[in-house]
């Protein structure tokens, strides 16, 4: 239970707690002690990295991009080419007869109109169960079209930062919780779905399906902000959709799992992560148990699994056994 609570705290924007040394498992203490004896040299780390990169090439990222593109193409094809499998847009749709409704959009509509249509309730329930099973924020990295373009913009941002042509300004992560509450409150008070107006997820999904719109200018402005001012700002600090699915995934069986035994604590995983605070456990001395499930704010994008040179991070489906690497 305490891990769920910790996961919630971090999701809401608080700093991950430091482990209580009484709670650290003896085997973990031993493992840390052994690592202290054998110091990692830079040459050794480079060699390990090099060895790792020979083997594979971002397998999870590839799978994820293909999935994300296919899901969005299914929306497009269902309308444009009359395939009729997944009709609608990401906010609400019909999948071979089943209603689907994006949860945050449903919440906005329910609060603004003070009414929840039965079909919407049905669609939202289906989506809730689906993403609770699949990992909550899995929606973000495996389906949301904005995530993909933001990921590309992020590469540009990092390239610029490396050359000192841009800076990464950070904000307090707790502001996303504030946005979540404010947008819910605004919908209720104003009677309009204000967040939907700004949501790059909805705008991009509709633009893909129904054709380009002026609203894409807002998405472009967000991307420019992320490229030149603040890395992945929308997903990290603003988007209430991410918050919603984070809550949905609190108890999800699909996790990234960390095993501290072989970890060099060099931080490659945190450097590529959209939400690096969830990987604080990979910092030397932070693990309490040999294996740790990564918290609910994790989007299960798999970048850390791809980048980890020691195979210390892997996907784990509770009840199905682990799938390391």
């Amino acid at each position, binding site marked *: 239970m305490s891990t769920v609570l910790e996961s919630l705290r971090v999701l809401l924007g608080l700093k991950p707690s430091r482990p209580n040394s009484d709670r650290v498992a003896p085997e973990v203490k031993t493992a840390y002690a052994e690592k202290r004896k054998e110091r990692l040299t830079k040459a050794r780390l480079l060699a390990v990295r090099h060895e790792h990169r020979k083997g594979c090439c971002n397998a999870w990222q590839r799978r994820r991009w293909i999935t994300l593109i296919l899901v969005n193409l299914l929306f497009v094809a269902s309308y444009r080419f009359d395939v009729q499998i997944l009709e609608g847009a990401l906010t609400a749709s019909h999948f071979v007869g089943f209603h689907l409704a994006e949860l945050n959009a449903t919440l906005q509509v329910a609060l603004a109109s003070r009414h929840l249509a039965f079909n919407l309730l049905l669609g939202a329930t289906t989506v809730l169960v689906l993403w609770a099973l699949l990992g909550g924020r899995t929606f973000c990295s495996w389906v949301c079209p904005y995530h993909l373009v933001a990921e590309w913009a992020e590469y540009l941002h990092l390239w610029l930062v490396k050359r000192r042509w841009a800076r990464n300004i950070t904000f307090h992560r707790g502001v996303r919780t504030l946005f979540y509450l404010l947008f819910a409150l605004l919908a209720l008070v104003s009677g309009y779905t204000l967040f939907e107006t700004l949501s790059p997820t909805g705008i991009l999904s*509709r633009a893909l399906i129904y054709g380009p719109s*002026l609203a894409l200018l807002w998405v472009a402005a967000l991307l420019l902000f992320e490229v030149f001012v603040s890395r992945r*700002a929308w997903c990290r600090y603003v988007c209430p959709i991410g918050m919603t699915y984070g809550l949905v995934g609190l108890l999800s069986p699909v996790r990234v799992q960390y095993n501290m035994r072989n970890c060099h604590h060099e931080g490659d995983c945190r450097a590529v992560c959209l939400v690096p605070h969830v990987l604080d456990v990979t910092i030397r001395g932070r693990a309490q148990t040999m294996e740790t499930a990564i918290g609910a704010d994790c989007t299960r994008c798999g970048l850390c699994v791809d980048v980890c040179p020691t195979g210390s991070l892997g996907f784990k489906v509770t009840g199905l056994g682990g799938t390391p690497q």
Partner: protein
Amino acid sequence: MWKIRWAAGPATTAVRRAQNRREFLRTAALTGGVLGASLLGLIPVLGGTSARHRPPGAIKDPLDEQQFLAACIKCGQCVQICPVQAIRLADLLDGVGVGAPYIEARTQACDFSCDGLQCVLACPSGALTHAIDYPAQARMGLARLSRPEACLARQGKGFKGLARGPAYTGKLRYAEVDRWTPIPVAEHPYDLELCDLCVRQCPIEIRRVQCAAGTPPSGDPNQCPPRPAIALEPGTDGQGLHPVVKDGCVGCGVCEMICPVTPAAIVVDIDRVSKVAWR
């Protein structure tokens, strides 16, 4: 455990406090910026510039679209189902109306060629209310002869040729041509001694004719509109016949779409609807 770390603890150094302060200010600016942007979306609705001709069943008072915009989840399933592609989605200039469906009747009106109000059935959120089942129950607006002097019927003129010219892309269902599939208006020339296109193509009047002949649409007598929507009648000013909009008008906009003069002599007002209860 739940303490937010902006609250500077005793161990905090002056540098750390300054950093925290700057982070707080940056975060406040971000909050203000994003909220400000979202509130800009209210300008078009408060200014009334986002009011539009909505699909059948849109829950709104003629003058107040708030309920409709609040309930619409902006998914476009109504767009996808419409057999004449009458429905489009509003863009950024509509503010919070972005992604909400509307109809541009002059380009492509709703001619109810689906009979069953498919957009209403497709709507998951009830923004297009399931309380209506038949075209005659819709209250989308009300037609008005806006330029009587341009009306061909009023001048006693006929009409021969393509109502909207060869380049016009709009479609209508002509039951006598194809009961199921709407065809381009540009493929359907007319030859009328007296122009009565607005009456002839009115979906309500078409149904009334079918019902009078004992063949209601889909064989369903419920499809029969109880009241007339438009008719050619003699004017009081000594001029010839001209179209008179009746209280059975649902405001679908087909008359505005098909009117052969430019700009159309008859238009749909979206800020008023027939006062006759549809139930």
